[in-house]
């Protein structure tokens, strides 16, 4: 494929205070669905935020579709961690999803009808159409996560960066997110997701980046998502039980 990669990172280093969180990462996300996997504190979220300019990078360059973010912002979407906002905020689910359309609106005045319709459509895709006018604080955790997913969809981006989309969600939400991921892939869109459940990586994603501050392995799931690579990434931190699960799913699902 001659088209530039959706996301490519060269020599990216990010540090909080003295401690480097992302160390000299050179990696590019191929088209399709890609998972970023690694132990807690491995800098997975930090890597995503650094590519979006939300945390300052010490060094390195980031390219989306071969261009700096500034030039292709409308092609990049973002699903932050659910816990990153105050859900007691006075807004309805539809209000939140409409925020995805703000860059396409003038800075003053109400949300134009076609953007509200796009937001409603995104809520339909995640199965939340009936909750459009519900106050976000009165939604369950999984429903809140789906509202965030709808907001990312309403951005109508070619690449969506997702930070722990499956964290602490119910089965219905997990199924809804998987459906959305597959639809995105089928429409030629790309997803890079920080993922915490090793067992479902082969089922949900085609490519994987194993990260623990630096890159341990990257490539197609069936090639690099091996117990040896995972063990190296997690060091001694991978519990025996988890290792057995990964081994089983890699053997069965690869």
């Amino acid at each position, binding site marked *: 494929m001659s088209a530039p990669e959706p996301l490519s990172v060269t020599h990216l280093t990010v540090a909080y205070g003295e401690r480097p969180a992302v160390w000299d990462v050179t990696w590019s996300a191929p088209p399709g669905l890609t998972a970023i996997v690694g132990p807690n504190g491995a800098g997975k979220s930090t890597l995503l935020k650094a590519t979006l*300019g939300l945390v300052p990078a010490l060094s390195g360059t980031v390219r989306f579709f071969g261009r700096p973010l500034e030039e292709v912002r409308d092609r990049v979407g973002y699903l*932050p961690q659910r816990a990153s906002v105050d859900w007691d905020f*006075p*807004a*309805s689910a539809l209000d939140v999803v409409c*925020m995805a359309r*703000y860059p396409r609106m003038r800075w*003053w005045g109400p949300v134009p009808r076609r953007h509200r319709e796009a937001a409603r459509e995104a809520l339909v895709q995640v199965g939340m159409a009936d909750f459009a006018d519900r106050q976000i604080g009165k939604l369950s955790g999984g429903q809140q996560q789906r509202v965030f997913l709808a*907001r990312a969809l309403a951005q109508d981006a070619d690449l969506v960066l997702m930070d722990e989309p499956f964290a602490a969600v119910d089965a219905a939400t997990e199924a809804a997110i998987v459906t959305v991921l597959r639809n995105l892939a089928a429409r030629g869109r790309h997803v890079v997701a920080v993922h915490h459940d090793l067992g479902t990586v082969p089922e949900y994603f085609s490519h994987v980046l194993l990260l623990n501050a630096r890159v341990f392995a990257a490539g197609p799931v069936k090639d690099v998502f091996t117990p040896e690579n995972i063990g190296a990434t997690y060091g001694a931190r991978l519990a025996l039980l988890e290792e057995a699960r990964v081994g089983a799913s890699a053997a069965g699902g690869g």
Partner: protein
Amino acid sequence: MGGFLSYNTLVVLAGCTLLGLAAGTVGTFALLRGRALVADAVGHAALPGVAIAALIVATLGADPRALPPLLAGAAIAGLLGVLAVQGLTRTRRIREDAAIAIVLSSFYAAGVALLSWLQSLPGAAQAGLSKFILGQAAAMRAEDATLAAGVALACLALVLGAFQRLRAVAFDADFARMQGLRTDRTDLLLLGLIVLVCVSGLQAVGLILVVALLVLPAATARLLTHRLPRMLGLAAATGAVAGGAGAWLSATRPELPTGAAVVLVAALFLVAALLAAPGRGLIAQGVSTLRRRLNTETEHFLRAAWEAQEAAGAGPGTAGDRWAPIAAVAAARGWSRWKVRRLALWLSLRGLVARAEGHVHLTPRGAAAARRAVRAHRAVEHHLLAAGAADIGSADRLADLVEHGLPPEMAARLLPEPSTLPASPHALGRQP
């Protein structure tokens, strides 16, 4: 102030009302963006600016009572105060709350020192300056009130215009920044609005209390609604009423500083909302907690009465038609005599049981409710036992905790056969 309906008083009243209106709307976003303390810093930091402006005006020989230079000085000093807070925070050695406390007190101390020094100087440079600390609307002239009103209207227009952007930044600034929205400009706009409201409120409310006019109406409105447009409207209305009423109180009783009167009225609204707000208010929450507890105890009572009949040999499925001793209910639940009698009285008032000679008899309605409670309890018990999540003793106690709020579809899943009433997995009677 004899004729309190004079032209001047009317203008002052209108000015304070508009000021409250603007403070309510700006305060809504200040509160949601977590800028309430910054507003406090702006107010306090304004004092040295007022003093220095008065000194300069006096040195130049102009009218020291002219308001615009004093307010300009206040605005500049307020902004410097905010910049100082940001600078201190950026060193990463002092956290923001501490930085605000430091700037607020240092600037205020500088202002107090400057004022004392000004008072020791010959001439009238200090005339009326201490009014800025606590506010004295009665001292306002019509043109001062017009200025405050104009600033307030401008704030109102800007907030309504930039509503979407302000909301986006207040809810999720990172997401807005990622989209390429200039969140720094939106934050700057909000900061500018806060400074404008603080400065235009200096003369009426005073610099110490002007923060209250930003925070109290917004917090009151937040208690009353979950919708941002409605919250804006309620905050504006609360602020306007507090501003107008406070100014009027202070105009009729000159010994009462306007700032104190305005803030007390606003605080009254907040307390009323805190107590009586539907849904979020303390009274509504207390009532709903009480009702939940009463419903739980009702179900426990009915189930105990049902099971007492089963234990007396009524057999599962046919119980509900005999007299059960109240003492047996009390023993099964571990309730005091007083409590069990109180509940029996309550249930008889609701028509769920009939009472006679220390016994209760379930009415048809009571029997149906009791059967439902028994079913729910045993369904949860059997489920917990089948899942291996508990032994027989703890399944009973765990079921007591979760059975009450059980939605019908979940109860149906736990107990697929609606006509049967399973036997209790444990012996009935006194609890261990």
